């Protein structure tokens, strides 16, 4: 805990982040080719169902990114280590980007299948709340200059906003939703598994590559704000109950 409140340090080269993102992009290309060219048509939705090969993995990974953000917020509040604040910012930004993409893909899929671009059904509404909540936290971070206040407020807000993420997931089970239920290996034909799984891992690797690179960017900005060579004094966040509290 002694060095936990020191300014964050960018360790190592960003090669791993680039490698993860590159591997993710390659997997996405492969999975998308399989889904678009090799997988059979679905019996009722026809070719439109091919959107699922990108939409479902985007949804899984958007929720995973926001779950990681939740973990980072908790870790920052408990440990006071700035690296968790950098990771929180990165995970929220990537999670919001994937969530916005998810809404666009879903909208494009909804038009030919439901006949509308958008409907205020429970799944879509809770997803919209999730996007606006986390976008609001990212906006809050831009308006707060004090790094300690910014980190604490956005961590608390991220924990509160995260309450909506399991609601998004279970909304199709809890309420009578126009959106279909979650698919499982038992409900999806084996012919559709592989492109779905390959794209899921593709977006997963891409997501962690982007989070890693974005966290490095946030770390560099925090270094400028918190420590040398900036003339500003080093700001500290000390978790409640930590020893050596000098406030």
């Amino acid at each position, binding site marked *: 805990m002694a060095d936990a409140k020191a300014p964050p340090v960018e360790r190592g080269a960003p090669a791993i982040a680039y490698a993860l*993102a590159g591997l993710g992009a390659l997997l996405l290309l492969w999975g998308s080719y399989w889904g*678009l060219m090799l997988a059979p048509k679905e019996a009722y*939705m026809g070719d439109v169902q091919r959107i699922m090969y990108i939409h479902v993995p*985007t949804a899984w990974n958007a929720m995973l990114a926001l779950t990681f953000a939740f973990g980072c917020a908790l870790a920052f509040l408990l440990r006071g280590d700035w690296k968790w604040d950098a990771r929180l910012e990165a995970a929220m930004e*990537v999670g919001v980007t994937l969530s916005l*993409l998810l809404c666009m893909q879903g909208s494009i899929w909804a038009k030919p299948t439901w006949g509308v671009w958008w409907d205020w059904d429970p799944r879509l509404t809770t997803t919209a709340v999730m996007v606006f909540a986390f976008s609001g936290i990212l906006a809050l971070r831009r308006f707060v200059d004090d790094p300690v206040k910014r980190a604490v407020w956005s961590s608390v807000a991220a924990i509160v906003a995260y309450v909506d993420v399991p609601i998004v997931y279970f909304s199709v089970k809890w309420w009578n939703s126009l959106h279909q239920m979650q698919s499982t290996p038992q409900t999806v034909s084996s012919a559709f598994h592989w492109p779905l799984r390959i794209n899921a891992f593709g977006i997963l690797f891409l997501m962690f590559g982007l989070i890693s690179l974005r966290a490095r960017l946030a770390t560099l900005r925090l270094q400028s704000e918190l420590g040398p060579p900036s003339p500003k004094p080093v700001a500290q966040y000390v978790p409640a109950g930590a020893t050596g509290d000098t406030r």
Partner: protein
Amino acid sequence: MSGTGVIEGGWEFVVAAYAVSAIILIGYAVSINIRYRAERARRKREAERAAEGIA
């Protein structure tokens, strides 16, 4: 949609969904890379200026 309830065609929607995904993912990845490199360059300049000040 045919009278059987089966959706026919729709490739334009499939192409649109994959094109939007590619544009957003590539655009966002490029944006992070540009911001990261710019911040690194700025940080390096700051460190050099600080070192000159000390010297």
